[in-house]
């Protein structure tokens, strides 16, 4: 794990789970697999707190445990999973676009809680939805269950590995840690539950008295004494499926940008058809015949068979090679080259970064070297039609930025520098890795800056929160306009200005984080796909 990744993980864990969990988590990421006592000793925290922190981390699938010989249980952190926490808003938003509010809330609950049973999810989501509905209406459990089942069918949620039901004839002491198993076919199997009920609206009177909520809430959660029907069957969000969806979205939008709407629809249809048949890590999808594609086009699209064929031929001939033709049976067998598509997307990202950092002439040189693979200094100047001095300058700028590298080809066996060719080349994989590392650093910087800004204005923020609370309570009890204005004036105009600036800055920083994360996704997918092929 690089330092940048560790720093980013540390910031994310601290924001979401607090300092203690962050300390333990970062220690595990740094040092790898360790048993409980060693962790407590090395981090200097009490055993009790280490246990709590590990429970939280295991619950959220950030740490896994393994039983080694002699009964020692070792805990290992999953750094890449910690980095996924950046992407939670994107997952939730995707669920919203696909399955509307119910789906969105289901995925949100699963992501916030790590793992949950289906009944718990349904209940919570129904309660939340009921609160947003108008008075008198409630959300039925059945509807939420239906959405849950649909999410499971399309593999967006999956079951967690479970404790195998062992017979009680097991002699001897129980194992130090349960070995969790999972089988492929059971992963999306929804238990037969008959969840009947409606969402409960939380009464606003619960929150009035300060002392009461504490007493009331624990009782509320242990309200139902009846046994949970699907006890032990936990569900989690299937992040890989979301990633597959993002990848498909990226490919479709790339095709739409390059060609037109109809071709992007064709590609989207092809991707949809291969969702279940092709595992997401394959370099290309299963071949689809033109007839099948024609039959599966969305209903609104009525293009004729010939037009479809023309589109497919056009797509297959495109130099970007998103779609390839693999045979002629069935009207032409077409595949989508997933690996090549990801490569093109990563390359486009690199090109755009070079353009924005160094200018468009640099970008021209970069694209030139990409296209021609290896070029000498002189050839670069000639092909790019840029004066020698500037070309040199730009090349060396890109060289020091590690976008371009030098390849030496010796003419003589003694590698004498005077008798060696030096060729400029772009190694996409290493440039992608370099950019990815930079992205991690950027996000860490963004988060730090945001925390700094918030800390600077902490006093002001608290004051404004209090004022808002006062205004809200006064409005609830029906106060006059004059009184409200008086309270609002507690915050002076320059303070208001300061708050506005703070809000704008924090929004900008947050939005930047989300967008850098999109780049991270593209680069990571490309690197993963390339590594799988080697």
């Amino acid at each position: 794990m690089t330092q940048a990744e560790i720093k980013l993980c540390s910031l994310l864990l601290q924001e979401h789970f607090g300092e203690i969990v962050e300390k333990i988590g970062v220690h595990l990421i740094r040092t790898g697999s360790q048993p409980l006592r060693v962790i407590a000793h090395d981090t200097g925290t009490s055993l009790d707190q280490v246990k709590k922190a590990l429970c939280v981390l295991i619950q959220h699938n950030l740490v896994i445990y393994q039983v080694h010989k002699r009964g020692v249980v070792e805990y290992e952190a999953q750094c890449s999973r910690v980095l996924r926490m950046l992407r939670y808003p994107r997952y939730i938003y995707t669920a919203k676009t696909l399955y509307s509010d119910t789906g969105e809330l289901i995925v949100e609950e699963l992501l916030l809680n790590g793992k949950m049973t289906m009944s718990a999810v349904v209940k919570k989501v129904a309660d939340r939805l009921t609160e947003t509905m108008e008075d008198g209406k409630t959300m039925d459990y059945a509807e939420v269950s239906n959405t849950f089942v649909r999410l499971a069918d399309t593999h967006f949620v999956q079951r967690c590995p479970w404790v195998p039901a062992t017979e009680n004839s097991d002699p001897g002491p129980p194992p130090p840690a349960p070995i969790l198993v999972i089988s492929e076919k059971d992963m999306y199997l929804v238990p037969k539950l008959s969840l009947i009920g409606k969402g409960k609206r939380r009464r606003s009177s619960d929150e009035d008295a300060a002392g009461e909520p504490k007493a009331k809430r624990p009782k509320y959660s242990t309200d139902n004494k009846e046994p949970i029907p699907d006890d032990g069957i936990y569900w989690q969000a299937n992040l890989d499926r979301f990633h597959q969806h993002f990848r498909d979205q990226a490919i479709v939008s790339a095709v739409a940008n390059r060609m037109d709407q109809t071709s992007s629809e064709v590609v989207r249809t092809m991707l949809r058809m291969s969702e279940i048949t092709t595992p997401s890590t394959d370099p290309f999808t299963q071949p689809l015949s033109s007839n099948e594609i024609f039959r599966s086009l969305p209903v609104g699209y009525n293009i004729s068979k010939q037009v479809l064929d023309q589109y497919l031929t056009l797509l297959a001939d495109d130099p970007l090679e998103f779609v390839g033709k693999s045979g002629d049976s069935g009207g032409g067998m077409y595949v989508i080259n997933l690996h090549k598509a990801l490569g093109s997307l990563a390359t486009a990202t690199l090109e755009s970064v070079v353009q924005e950092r160094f200018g468009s002439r640099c970008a021209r040189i970069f694209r030139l070297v990409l296209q021609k693979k290896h070029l000498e200094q002189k050839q670069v100047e000639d092909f790019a039609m840029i004066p020698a001095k500037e070309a040199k300058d730009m090349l060396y700028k890109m060289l020091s930025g590690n976008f371009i590298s030098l390849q030496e080809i010796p003419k003589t066996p003694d590698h004498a520098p005077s008798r060696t060719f030096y060729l400029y080349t772009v190694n996409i994989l290493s440039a992608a890795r370099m950019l990815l590392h930079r992205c991690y650093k950027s996000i860490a910087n963004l988060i730090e800056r945001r925390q700094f800004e918030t800390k600077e204005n902490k006093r002001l923020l608290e004051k404004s929160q209090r004022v808002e609370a006062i205004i809200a309570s006064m409005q609830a009890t029906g106060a006059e306009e004059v009184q409200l204005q008086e309270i609002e004036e507690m915050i002076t105009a320059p303070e208001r200005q300061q708050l506005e600036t703070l809000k704008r800055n924090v929004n900008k920083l947050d939005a930047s984080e989300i967008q850098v994360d999109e780049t991270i996704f593209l680069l990571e997918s490309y690197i993963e796909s390339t590594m799988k092929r080697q």
Partner: protein
Amino acid sequence: MEEYGACQGLKSSWPSGRGLAREWVGPTGWDRNKALRPRGGRSAVLQRWNAYPSARAFCLHPFLAGRHFGCTVLPKPRDLVSRTNPMAGSQGRGRAAYTFNIEAVGFGRGEKLPDVVLKPPPLFPDTDYKPVPLKAGEGEDYMLALKQELRETMKRMPYYIETPEEKQDIERYSKRYMKVYKEEWIPDWRRLPREMMPRKKCKKAGPKSEKVKDTGKGASLTNTADVLKKIEELEKRGDGEKSDEENEEKEGGKEKNQEGDEEDDDAAEQEEYDEEEQEEENDYINSYFEDGDDFGADSDDNMDEATY
């Protein structure tokens, strides 16, 4: 070539013109044998390498660190003009000369090259081009709002473990009203290693974990006997015990039995527990004297009053 021997790995990253190796011209002119063998062996080579901080610094420049550096390092330009024969490796140190044809990399002879940078790049470098504005749209706005909302929600979840703050000198009145009430979260102990379970004697959420363990393990039959014994013991010891204390002890005992480890803490904990229990159970001070003891006879020297 084999003559290189020890320096084979270094040959492409050597600074040029340090009189180190292959291009070395001795006083008798080009002496191939002498040239191909590095003077002094590998350690000497490394010493000489280390003696030229500028060249090293250039090589280890953060931008270039870690790259396979194919071409030789560009040396200091100051002696460029005076060099007529770049191949004439120096007889001394610190003379910059190129061992390769400078034309090949694109610089003309006599050209002013930029200075060697000897320090890390600035912390906030100036950028020539300003960044492109962020994407704006419905989706992006929604995700932004979601992100901020999630951040707030996470702080209120039971998974957010707060650091215990150090005691402030003055206890603020408003602190009482700003506490966030969090739900208690109990993990499913069946899915976790056994060592995860806390071993405290009293747990607020004891009854819940008890229930979970009951439905899960179903091994409570063996423990009820122990529990009953313990309850009897406790009944003998204490009279004014509250019922919840009893409950706590019950699961405390149950937990310890279920874990079944022979750890020393258990015994120690039980002992401590007993002491505390005894202390709490009655209202009498431990140091109470019975009648007849010498009460205060040797304690207060200046006491004039009579004792009663």
